[in-house]
């Protein structure tokens, strides 16, 4: 299935958000995720199904002013 992850087109086999993070080697309890503009809490990623063309954001703590 084709998804847009952090603005880039990705072809993946994962069918849930949790599986997608594992497949793309995203690790860490500090990651935040959103699916099509809606926040998906960490505890709900394994129950969050993905569909063709979904837009996923994976964010991480970063310096800021």
């Amino acid at each position, binding site marked *: 299935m084709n998804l847009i992850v*952090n603005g880039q087109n990705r072809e993946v086999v994962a069918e849930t958000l949790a599986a997608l993070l594992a497949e793309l080697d995203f690790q860490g309890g500090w*990651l935040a995720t959103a699916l099509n503009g809606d*926040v998906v809490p960490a505890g709900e990623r394994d129950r969050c199904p993905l569909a063709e063309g979904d837009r996923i954001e994976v*964010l*991480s*703590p*970063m*310096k*800021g002013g």
Partner: protein
Amino acid sequence: MLELYGQNLSSRLLLGTALYPSPAIMAEAIKASGTEIVTVSLRRETSGGKAGGQFWSLVQSLGVRVLPNTAGCHSVSEAITTARMAREVFGTDWIKLEVIGNHDTLQPDVFGLVEAARILASEGFDVFPYTTDDLVVAERLLDAGCRVLMPWCAPIGSARGPQNTGALRSLRGYFPGIPLIVDAGIGRPSHAAAVMELGYDAVLLNTAVAKAGDPVTIAAAFGKAVEAGHEAYRAGLIEPRDMAVPSTPVIGMAAFS
């Protein structure tokens, strides 16, 4: 003592974590400043979580509170989604709310800001709005549920210092019980002292420290300036006069001719 959303704080300086020459210098500057609150952001992770994890571990090791921001958001929906994600990652209800309205000046979109503040406050966020020095906007933000205001004194990163002292003074006069933090535009310790002398409760800085020749030394200098300005305000400053007034007693002067 400064109180922000129920938290008592000894330091009146809030410091950003961006633009430093290195993470080590950032850490040393934070320690030297005496700050208890640093601002952080959320950005797309590009290295599987490692870059963000290292930064977050370093910040956590410093023992300070974090104030996540919504920097770079140009719409209400972007800011709200970012705030919700920040709450999950950083484990805090605090959010420095930025809704940017102009690319060149980084001036806040105050209409979007009020709208986003209302929504986030209703969701239990403690909103720190990055706003202008406009009095009516400040009133709207308080109506929306903000209990802290963070007006700029000049555009972000400009280092110009207070551009409209009269407007800053008006905010202080109208909202005596609301914590007021100058966020953005400070370039020098004397600028920080100047706004604190107006009765502001705290100052939020980043560029003026991170881009200085020696960020660690100037961080300490800003800490002292903020404290000096605050103590001066509490002490009560004399008003300027047009003419000279001798400080040494005139009575009792010798007559030599």
